[in-house]
């Protein structure tokens, strides 16, 4: 469904992403992990059209989308969320989600109904009239998810939707993400929270210093010596195995 081939992106002298490749198949939940500064968010931004890649290409459902503007990529059926949440602060949650829903319809009533339905999916039905600025971290993460979902994507790129959440909130949002996948939407997620990645993703890619160093099931990745060295550390590897 999504094919990334040897994608590179530099900022000045820094190779943020260096010939990274990955595949996402229809119906999967795929994780992308890596230490801080590995280039995960840059890779996401390059896939979603926010940075034009220096080299390599991105294909979505067989069509080349390399370097297309974000709104065209959204139209193709792929949408991203932001690690640093970007709520529309001065409008309500309902209006926030409606901006996403307006992608599919120009009709206000329909957009409103769609926004309310999506709010139900992510568990924000009770917060529709709250202002974007007044949400907690967990609320903002849900709102990111809801807005993206409202555009009706077939592939969701989630950038650390669990960062900064407490364990209860993580359990809740993991459930939400599973439900979204079960409704037929494929998911590629960047994640730091290992517990979440292992319980959600069928396959995991590991990025380190801009390079893709491993790919496999969460269990296999946890065994991979290169990954353990680059990212997890010996202690964490033991915890995962336990």
């Amino acid at each position: 469904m999504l094919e990334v081939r040897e994608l590179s992106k530099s900022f000045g002298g820094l190779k943020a992403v260096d010939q990274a490749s990955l595949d996402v198949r229809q119906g999967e939940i795929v994780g992308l992990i890596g230490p801080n500064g590995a280039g995960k968010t840059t890779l996401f931004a390059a896939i979603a059209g926010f940075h034009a890649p220096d080299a390599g290409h991105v294909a979505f459902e067989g069509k080349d989308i390399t370097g297309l503007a974000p709104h065209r990529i959204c139209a193709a059926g792929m949408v991203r969320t932001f690690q640093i949440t970007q709520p529309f602060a001065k409008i309500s949650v309902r209006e926030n989600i409606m901006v996403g829903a307006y992608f599919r319809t120009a009709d206000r009533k329909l957009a409103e109904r769609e926004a309310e339905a999506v709010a139900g999916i992510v568990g924000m039905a009770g917060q529709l009239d709250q202002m974007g600025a007044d949400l907690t971290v967990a609320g903002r993460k849900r709102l990111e998810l809801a807005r993206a979902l409202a555009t009706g994507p077939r592939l969701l790129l989630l950038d650390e939707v669990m960062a900064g959440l407490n364990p209860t909130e993580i359990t809740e949002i993991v459930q939400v993400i599973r439900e979204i996948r079960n409704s037929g939407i494929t998911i590629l997620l960047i994640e730091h929270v290992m517990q979440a990645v292992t319980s959600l993703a069928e396959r995991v890619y590991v990025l380190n210093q801009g390079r893709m160093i491993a790919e496999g099931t969460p269990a296999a990745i946890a065994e991979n010596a290169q990954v353990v060295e680059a990212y997890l550390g010996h202690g964490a590897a033991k915890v995962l195995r336990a």
Partner: protein
Amino acid sequence: MSRQALLCALGLAAAVIYPLVAPNYLINIGMMVFFVAFIGQSWNIAGGFAGQTSFGHVVFFGTGAYTSTILQVTYGWNPWLAWPAAMLAGGIVGWVIAFLSFRAGLRGSYFALITLAFAEVFRILANSVPFTRGGLGMLIKADQRPINFQFKEPIWIYYIALALCVISLLIAWQLTRNRFGARLVAIRENEDAARALGIDVFAEKVKVLTLSGAMCAAGGTFYAQKYLYIDPSIAFGVDKSVEMLLVSMVGGAGTIFGPLIGSVALTAINEITRWLASVVPALKNVQPLSLVVYGIMLVLIVARLPDGLMGLFRRKPRHA
């Protein structure tokens, strides 16, 4: 009928009856209130709703004023026909400025400054090219007949200003409830998020500045027809840009009634200070006193009421 709709209907009825009972000089003040509210709204649509703050909106105003005046004086067009042509010209200038500045990725204060630069360039051009008659300005021949967009009685020009104001309020009201408006607000609040959600940010910004430019140009023609004279500093002077921005900020940028309320407030201050200066000898030399009060008011609004006077009426957002 909701409470708001009832208030609007009452307000409109009062505005319609007002010139029937008010003396001429008060009709003129009312006319100015609605006219400034109208051009303020043209600023508000781009600057308030879409967050594309402009310091040079007068460029559209002047384009409108000059287009209709030149067509009329030099080419003998009827002003009513020249009016839509002026709006078209304002829209084109808006489109071009937006295309150039947004293609170059200018945002925030950079965009504000580039609009200011455009306005100054237009002022200097109007001063130097032959077809605007340079600094002499252009005089429209007085012939007070409705067919010439000139009226003997101030009541008619008042009603036209009122109609313009009502139309601009309807446009702003539509923006609060349609997709285009929702997208503008999304762009104002967070451009990157808007882009991620499938909004063609560039196209929407160009669209809104085109609309805003066309509206503002309509105000320019109106002004020229009211005073029958324009020159480069009237048509492209910075003070008009400031006036549009000020009424929106004072009343509440990004709100439907902000520019109208701001216009009422500033006109009231203007009249009161003028009266004060005439009765209090100590204030005679503080001229114009209104500017001093504007300044103080703007500081207070920015510091205390970021949502403008409208912020006083709006209910507080609910907290969880």
